[in-house]
């Protein structure tokens, strides 16, 4: 009996070792809001085509995605590949966590199918390629066509028109003396920097890291934004804490007449509002008609700690190819990065695709600096909330952001 057990144990150990040697495992992190996501079918398709590779795909909640990623890297437990955004690239590079993929892209069949120029936008600060784009969006202005029609308004093209429309939209519709509808759903919580940048940045010479955030024009632009809440009262009172759920929910319910988001939420908007919702590029707020909107990127990267980088590359390049990429974007509701996928794109209504395409000429990304992660995650949300609630002035808020970028 003893001999039998020993033999069985040795056999089991040998089998485990053999399996480990023959199948490479790629640990992949991603974040999808949609729980009904197609990752399982993509993994099955990939594994069928690549029998030696097993994919362990883990959906990590967005709110703590980067906190988890950075600590996993430092703790030596980084995934082999992951979904990543441009703002994190400088910090990930500083950590030595990214693997350059120029050679792999050069010999990859799918590279010619990528949209023109998209690799360049995602290039690293040192000119090397670490990110392989997988989807993109551009932020635009949603507006309620029914409310605009009722008030005889046209979608705003400048910040003055925007303020004017927001003031008119903010009103008591039931006659009880209380405001029922607000002009604009402002995202004052984490992730709302894109709203603020659209309204403020065009007035800042040199951009966020240009050292001019405390110039008179820049402070005045921020004061103007803060006044929209404090004086004009065109944001809902909950705006300082509002996040994605609140701005989208408020817009769908008719609490707000405008908000800023991207095509990823358009299908849900149409489902809730039908043709009562449309979109245009964000208003131009610069002194000479300059506009700024956020190019919302999402890429894939191979980590330098990956044991089998070729297997990780095979998996991420698989996700960026033609129909796989279309399937991937069906789940996220964003736009494909491939020419073949774009050719017969039918996942979104045309008016939202048009608003996206028309916004591309002035869409930009945040500065490629390690400070940007702190700006997005800590400094902007805290200082914006403090400015909105009157804890600090608009000038003090600009000083805090200036100090952050100045310290790098």
């Amino acid at each position: 009996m003893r001999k039998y057990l020993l033999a069985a144990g040795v056999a089991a150990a040998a089998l485990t070792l053999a399996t480990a040697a023959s199948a490479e495992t790629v640990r992949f992190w991603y974040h999808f809001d949609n729980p009904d996501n197609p990752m399982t079918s993509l993994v099955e398709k990939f594994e069928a085509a690549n029998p030696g590779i097993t994919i362990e795909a883990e959906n990590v909640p967005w709110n703590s995605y980067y906190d988890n990623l950075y600590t996993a890297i430092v703790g030596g437990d980084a995934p082999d590949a992951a979904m990543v955004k441009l703002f994190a690239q400088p910090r990930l590079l500083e950590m030595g966590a990214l693997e350059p993929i120029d050679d792999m892209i050069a010999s990859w069949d799918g590279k010619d199918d990528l949209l023109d120029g998209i690799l360049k936008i995602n290039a690293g600060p040192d000119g090397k390629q670490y990110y392989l784009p997988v989807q993109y969006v551009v932020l635009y202005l949603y507006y309620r066509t029914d409310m605009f029609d009722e008030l005889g308004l046209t979608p705003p093209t400048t910040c003055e028109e925007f303020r004017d429309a927001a003031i008119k939209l903010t009103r008591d519709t039931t006659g009880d003396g209380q405001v029922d509808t607000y002009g604009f759903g402002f995202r004052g919580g984490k992730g709302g920097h894109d709203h603020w940048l659209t309204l403020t940045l065009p007035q800042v010479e040199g951009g966020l890291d240009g050292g001019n955030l405390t110039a008179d024009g820049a402070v005045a632009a921020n004061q103007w934004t803060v006044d929209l809440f404090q004086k004009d009262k065109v944001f809902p009172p909950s705006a300082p804490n509002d996040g994605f759920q609140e701005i989208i929910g408020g817009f769908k319910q008719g609490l707000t007449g405008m908000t800023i988001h991207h095509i990823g939420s358009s299908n849900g908007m149409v489902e809730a509002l039908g043709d009562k919702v449309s979109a245009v590029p964000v208003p131009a707020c610069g002194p000479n008609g300059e506009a700024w909107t956020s190019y919302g990127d999402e890429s894939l990267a191979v980590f330098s700690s990956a044991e089998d980088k070729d297997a990780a590359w095979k998996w991420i390049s698989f996700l960026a190819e033609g129909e796989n990429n279309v399937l991937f974007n069906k789940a996220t509701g964003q736009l494909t990065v491939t020419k073949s996928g774009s050719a017969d794109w039918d996942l979104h209504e045309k008016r939202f695709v048009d608003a996206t395409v028309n916004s591309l000429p002035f869409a930009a990304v945040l500065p490629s600096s390690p400070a940007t992660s702190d700006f997005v995650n800590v400094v902007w949300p805290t200082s914006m909330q403090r400015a909105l609630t009157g804890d600090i002035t608009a000038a003090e808020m600009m000083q805090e952001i200036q100090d952050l970028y100045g310290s790098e």
Partner: protein
Amino acid sequence: MTRRRKGGATLPYWLLSPAVVVTLFIVFVPMAEAVFLSLHDYLIWKPTSFAFVGLKNFITALGDEVFWISAWHTLIWIGLTVPAQMLLGLVTALLLNRTFPWRGLARALVIIPWALPSVITALMWRWIYDANNGVLNDILVRIGVLQSAFPWLADPDSALLSIVLTLTWQGFPFFAVMILAGLQAIPSSHYEAADIDGATTWQQFRHVTLPGIAGVLVTAGLLRLIWVANSIDVIFVMTGGGPGYATYTLPLYAFIEARTSLNFGYGSALAVMFTIILGAFIVFYLRRAGRSLEA
């Protein structure tokens, strides 16, 4: 015989050693690590710039506005939450100690807030307080207390107090159950004797009930004080510390510095400072409570 004695003498240590080793590794090693990190500049995304800086992080904290804001909030947080939980728990326990129909069911139901996971409690209350769809605003507007919906968690003046109320609701059953156990340990003969002596209900409460549950109050109060002081989950889920720094407490500040800003050196220094302050407070509390118990 001698050998057997020797073996017998070391056996208890061998039996205890697994627990001691585990405790050393999961409690004392991280504690020592936190103290070690607090003496260094350590941004975890800059792994190459790890440098010993002595007490610099502690001195920085003393000059840091956010540290003092957080310290003040921590004081309010503990000072309001623990007494409120204790008072509500005491009232509940006194009610549950009376005889009434369905008492068993009431005793079971009262434990629900305590049994719910903190994240569920926080999410539930976030929706209750919601400015646009929240039930609290709806009720207050309907009964005419408020003219219009109030953003409880988005207003810096009400955000912390709103979370204090949530935590009071969550934690009072713990006191209720502990105090109820204490109440049932008081012999009924004490009340009968007091009754014969002509003591009023208040006098019975003051001179029989309170001394009878004093030990429970001190112990439960101490446990809750430590738990509430360190509790960040409900605040983190409800406001994330915002708006601005309106709901920052010291442990939350340490957490955000380490986890979100990735500044492990400064975050550890904040945590170490808070541990020292809390430790000193607990020693003071135990001495005071011990003295009053003896008296």
